[in-house]
């Protein structure tokens, strides 16, 4: 229990540090909010007036404290560019990205678990080599290229699925899924290929362990031993990779959202950058950072569930 407390405390400290770093980075970029809002022809006096209005003329730490305090209440501020509240916009978009990433991860797992087990069981045979080769190809293909190929195959040639766009889940679940299938596949196939190799190598190293021989010696069949004794042990290194991949997927989602015209966080982030909407960019980046940190925390806690040796420490 004390471990959970300790890890959560570490998470909170990390969030504070990360949010400050994000804030500081964007604050030192040339061109402050008032200059952006007023355009290139603004007089220095007008810029100064607007800066006072925005509060961007105050010391950096004060501005940070103000912004951070808002964040604690879920208030991300109001955009200097669009004059909309940022919080609700991020919340809407975040849900879309979570669906995208979760689906992509699920595709990756559904692909990698059976493929990894088969590749391990068939290693040193032709079939195993074929699976390894396929996963190698999968790793080499970037997600956006996979996305474009999928669009070409399923949307353009077959015409079965939409090439882009998004329908909220609450509006029409079936249409929602139809729009997300291709993005899920393009995210999941690549990550699944990477994961397949990790599952395979983790299983192969577990297979060499003495306890696998013990299991076989008590009469467990080859495949059953692999699944019942191999997988739970192989899960420990695989979860490490899974945590890292989830973070990767968040980043990969930005590109895939672009390809499939999905209104997610990535799309919002890119728009913020284009419009030089610093406050919006800050907000999105902080949300992404916190998401990555939370994923890490969950991975870390998952270790203890999977590995009793860590629990007693």
């Amino acid at each position, binding site marked *: 229990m004390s471990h959970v407390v300790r890890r959560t405390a570490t998470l909170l400290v990390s969030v504070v540090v990360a949010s400050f770093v994000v804030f500081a980075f964007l604050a030192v970029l040339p061109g402050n909010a008032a200059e952006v809002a007023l355009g290139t022809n603004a007089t220095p006096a007008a810029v100064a007036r607007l800066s006072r209005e925005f509060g961007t003329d105050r010391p950096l730490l004060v501005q940070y404290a103000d912004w951070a305090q808002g964040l604690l209440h879920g208030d991300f501020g109001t955009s200097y560019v669009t004059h909309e509240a940022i919080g609700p916009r991020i919340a809407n978009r975040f849900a879309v990205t979570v669906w995208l990433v979760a689906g992509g991860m699920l595709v990756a797992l559904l692909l990698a678990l059976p493929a990894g087990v088969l590749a391990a069981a068939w290693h040193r045979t032709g079939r195993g080599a074929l699976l390894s080769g396929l996963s190698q190809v999968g790793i080499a293909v970037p997600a956006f290229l996979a996305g474009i190929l999928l669009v070409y195959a399923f949307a353009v040639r077959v015409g079965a699925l939409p090439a882009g766009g998004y329908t909220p889940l609450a509006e029409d679940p079936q249409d929602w899924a139809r729009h997300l299938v291709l993005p899920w596949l393009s995210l999941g196939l690549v990550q699944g290929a990477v994961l397949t190799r990790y599952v395979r190598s983790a299983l192969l190293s577990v297979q060499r362990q003495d306890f696998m021989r*013990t299991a076989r*010696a008590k009469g467990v069949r080859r495949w059953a031993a692999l699944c019942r004794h191999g997988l739970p042990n192989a899960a420990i290194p695989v979860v490490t990779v899974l945590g890292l991949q989830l973070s990767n997927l968040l980043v990969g989602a930005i590109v895939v959202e672009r390809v499939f015209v999905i209104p997610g966080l990535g799309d919002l982030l890119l728009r913020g950058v284009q419009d030089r909407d610093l406050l919006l960019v800050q907000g999105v980046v902080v949300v992404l950072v916190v998401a990555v940190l939370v994923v890490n925390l969950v991975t870390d806690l998952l270790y203890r569930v999977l590995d*009793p040796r860590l629990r007693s420490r």
Partner: protein
Amino acid sequence: MSPGEPLLEVTNLTVDSGSARLVRGIGFTVARGERVGVIGESGSGKSLTALACLGLLDDGLRPGGSVRLAGVEFDLLGASDRQLSAIRGKRVGMVFQEPMTALNPVQRVGSQITEGMRLHGTRPTRRVADEAAVELLDRLRLPAPRQAARSFPHQLSGGQRQRGVLGIALSNDPDLLICDEPTTALDVTVQKEITDLIVGDCEERGTAVLFISHDLALVSSVCHRVLVMYGGRIVESGPADRVLSAPKHPYTRALLAACDLTPGSRARAIPGVVPAPKDLPAGCGFSNRCAYADEQCAAPPEPTGEKPDDTVACWHHDALPAWPSAAESPDRDRTEPAHCGKAVDSELLLSTQGLTRRYQGRRTGLFGKRPTFRALEPIDLDLRAGQRVGVVGESGAGKSTLLRLLAGLDRPSDGGVRYFGRADGPSGGAGSRLQVVFQDPMGSLDPRLRVREIIAEPLPARRSAAARERVSELLTAVGLPEEAGERYPHQLSGGQRQRIAIARALAPEPAVLLADEPVSALDVSVRAEVLDLLRTATTEREMALCVISHDLGVIRYLCDTVLVLRDGRLVESGTVESVWEAPRHPYTKQLLGAVPRMRY
């Protein structure tokens, strides 16, 4: 099945890897309730034989021949995984060498035992199986069996884990129990408990045992009958008392001589090393190391004997001198150099005052105090020139902690070590006067350096002509050919690697040599050689030697003074003779009593 039918019948068994034949056509039987020992050094094919019987060989290995089990219609060697799985764990149970890794680390011990019961349907429900597992652990004298069944493997000690493994093997009351070096990784007292348990339980239930070990004394105390394997063949077989008291094969004789570490005698190493399977001589596999070999041995000898279960495979077994012959047995009248008396007034090289090591445990709560573990209680000891001190104790006794402190590889929590009369630590000037030989010769040699470079490393001018000469000198001294210097560690055998480690340690002519389990990773036939090397090095050069070993025989053979450690505390010390003849501390008595003795 007829009453006379053997339980297990192995005929002409072979095991091939892609490039070599590892088991070269062996045959033997195990009767119901009989305990058969398989003796052999590493590479003899004894473990492969056991694994082949159950179809558990690694993917790259192919078996040939036939293995029949009483009551089973088919040949186990050609059987499918499904057919074999019905036999494994039901008719035949198996115990492996490494209890630390033989259990699944993420599954509770109890459920690992019940898995086999449920799989073979010997217990109707999960609840009955759970209860049976607890009863089984109780029968195997595991303290608090109910709690042990709920534990994960890492929560148990080595001996407790091995009882768990034994529980898995015995869970369905098998007819045959195969034990592959079941106690090699355990402390002597635990070893005795486990072997007593195996013998007692199998005796009571009429379970037959195939007991694989390199330890002749252990096999003699467990088995009715033994098979001696060398180079993938059975060279001799027969009743344990006959084979161990009147061995017929030159290899069996050589092995017995090499094992005999009786003090005052000189154990006889077998010349050469166990060859790799592809380098074995064509005829008799032992012919290139055998003193009696001639042209006839180029043809493989068949096992011959009056009875099928009392055989020897040697062309010359009739012509060998009576055992024990003067030329083969350890020479007992060898005069010992009188070091004991001399050591008292010789130069004091190393002394400790209240040397202590404590470790801080992990904090239990957020504000809790860190618990302290005492790895080594305050200890005072003196090491004088020419003295050979042995440190014995079981795992966790603090032996290695003591050695690390003496070598300056760890800092004491309290007290200190004075080196050569100074208190400035072994670094600087004292460094080359103190050298260490570690347990694992593979892990302690840099794999990327040539042997020559490894030995030259502690020398002041490594590349000088003088250094080259010194290396050649040392190679000769440790009994290696000159060209071994150009090789890399992985190209050498375990015994050769340990000799290189010793040569490296001797290179700067140290005054003190510390050795941590110097022979425990080595085969019996080369063990004697390494021990003799250490012994001559110390007597010839008035060097002080401090040896750590869990093997009491090694300490008795090599040392004149012994320290007995238990739980970080020095419980007894004295001369080797006095401690062996009249141990005072009950723990010392227990340790000495647990050492397996040759029964015949």
